[in-house]
């Protein structure tokens, strides 16, 4: 395992599989236990450094770190020295001086975790950077797929939505490809990056055409305000062409599943009855997130400093 987890693009198959296997062992070791705590990271300090609000991701990392007995410090940019103009580098050096063994960073700027990793001795975990990557989300998605379908090799995954602005999409494209899945991206051309042709994916503009072959449909959050920049004409038209409703869901194979990284825009990219259907893994994804993040923290922080 490497020292940092910055992007799923640089995880090889062995690394990624080790994370998933470790998460599965942790989950089964903790299943049914009253004491859901392990002493593994006792005396280690994990800083949750969140420059963007993301309660769900922060809580998931916090729980993961605490279940491994790490000391957890939540450092939110709002109301801190950062909002008073302190630079990322100065913040990093401060955390370093405080002896942070691991820094879990969420930042609005792509590549901020990479920069951070050059300034600190501890391990850096990317908890989402700009429109770049969100590798633990992809790992928990892969974990969820493997848990539900029993495999990743050859699984056909359709990722639909605002790929252009989605760090979840990027992380999933690389990780799923590494793990042998076949990824199809579906979006209006305006929401696909120029350069998507170099990705190991199939691209389609037609959701209805690809659904019948899909094993997994992953819906990405689409922000309504995108239409102000003419990425699409209206929320209604987007929803009609690219939203997943019950009619579209009926085209899926019997055992196909529906995923969403959350938070959902019900009625926009996903209909309420789809989100709440038995195909939906949305709640499982949240629980799996803790196991996967425990695995990542164990593998990065458990060994020699």
């Amino acid at each position, binding site marked *: 395992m490497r020292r940092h987890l910055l992007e799923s693009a640089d995880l090889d198959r062995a690394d990624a599989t080790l994370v998933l*296997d470790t998460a599965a*062992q942790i989950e089964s070791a903790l299943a049914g*236990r009253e004491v859901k705590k*392990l002493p*593994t990271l006792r005396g280690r300090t994990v800083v949750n450094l969140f420059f963007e609000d993301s309660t769900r991701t922060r809580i998931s990392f916090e729980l993961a770190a605490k279940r491994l007995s790490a000391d957890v410090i939540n450092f939110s940019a709002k109301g801190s020295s950062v909002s008073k103009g302190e630079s990322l580098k100065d913040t990093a050096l401060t955390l370093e001086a405080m002896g942070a063994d691991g820094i879990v960073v969420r930042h609005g700027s792509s590549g901020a975790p990479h920069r951070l990793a050059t300034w600190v001795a501890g391990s850096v975990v990317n908890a989402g950077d700009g429109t770049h990557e969100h590798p633990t989300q992809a790992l928990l998605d892969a974990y969820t797929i493997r848990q539900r379908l029993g495999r990743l090799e050859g699984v056909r995954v359709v990722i639909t939505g605002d790929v252009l602005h989605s760090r979840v999409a990027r992380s999933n494209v690389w990780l799923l490809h590494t793990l042998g899945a076949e990824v199809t991206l579906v979006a209006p051309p305006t929401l696909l990056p120029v350069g998507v042709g170099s990705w190991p994916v199939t691209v389609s503009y037609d959701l209805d055409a690809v659904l019948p072959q899909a094993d997994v449909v992953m819906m990405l959050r689409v922000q309504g305000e995108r239409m102000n920049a003419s990425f699409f004409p209206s929320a209604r038209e987007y929803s009609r062409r690219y939203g997943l409703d019950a009619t579209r869901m009926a085209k899926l194979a019997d055992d196909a599943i529906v995923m969403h990284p959350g938070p959902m825009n019900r009625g926009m990219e996903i209909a309420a009855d789809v989100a709440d259907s038995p195909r939906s893994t949305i709640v499982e994804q949240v629980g799996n997130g803790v196991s996967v993040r425990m695995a990542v923290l164990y593998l990065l922080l458990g060994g020699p400093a």
Partner: protein
Amino acid sequence: MAPPSTLPTGVPAEGPETTSSTPTATAGGVQQLLSADDVTRVVDRIAHQLIERAASSTSSGDGLSDLVLVGIPTRGAPLARRLAARIEAFTGTAVDVGTVDITLYRDDLRTRGVRALEDTRLPDAGIDGRLVVLVDDVLFSGRSVRAALDGLRDVGRPRAVQLAVLVDRGHRELPIKADFVGKNVPTSRTQQVRVRLAEVDGEDGVSVTDA
């Protein structure tokens, strides 16, 4: 599988065997301590001791329903399963078996690095109020056993915890003592004791290697 007819199958003497059969010296400073047959014989003996101990520790019945054999991966896990199989062969009673991976409880991760985790599986009936016998291949510093005790504490409260090992090679670093020992082997600290089990290594045997 019936015990080999050439070996005694009766109740063995109390306590661990302390004299060793003459080790078979081979090339490269490797000494064969137990052959495959020896391993089978030792497992059988520990199984008998467990049966006896279970019976003596309960006021009613054979006490076997009270017993849980918990193996410490990697080789403690198949050892526990073998012991359970032998007990069932000798008594006709199935014994609960589990494994507890101790990696996340180890105190040497920082020096030896992280490693892949192994299975933790406990019987559905749990371990609360029962007699748990931890099973491992080699008892050395005692740190693995300490980690296993910590792990057990988080999953329940057994009535008592005992320890069975195939080989005790000495050099304890913690106040831990085995209740059932297949073979005591005097070693130097730098020697390596290697236990091979068919389930993991393709064959049975125990050897010691000079460092």
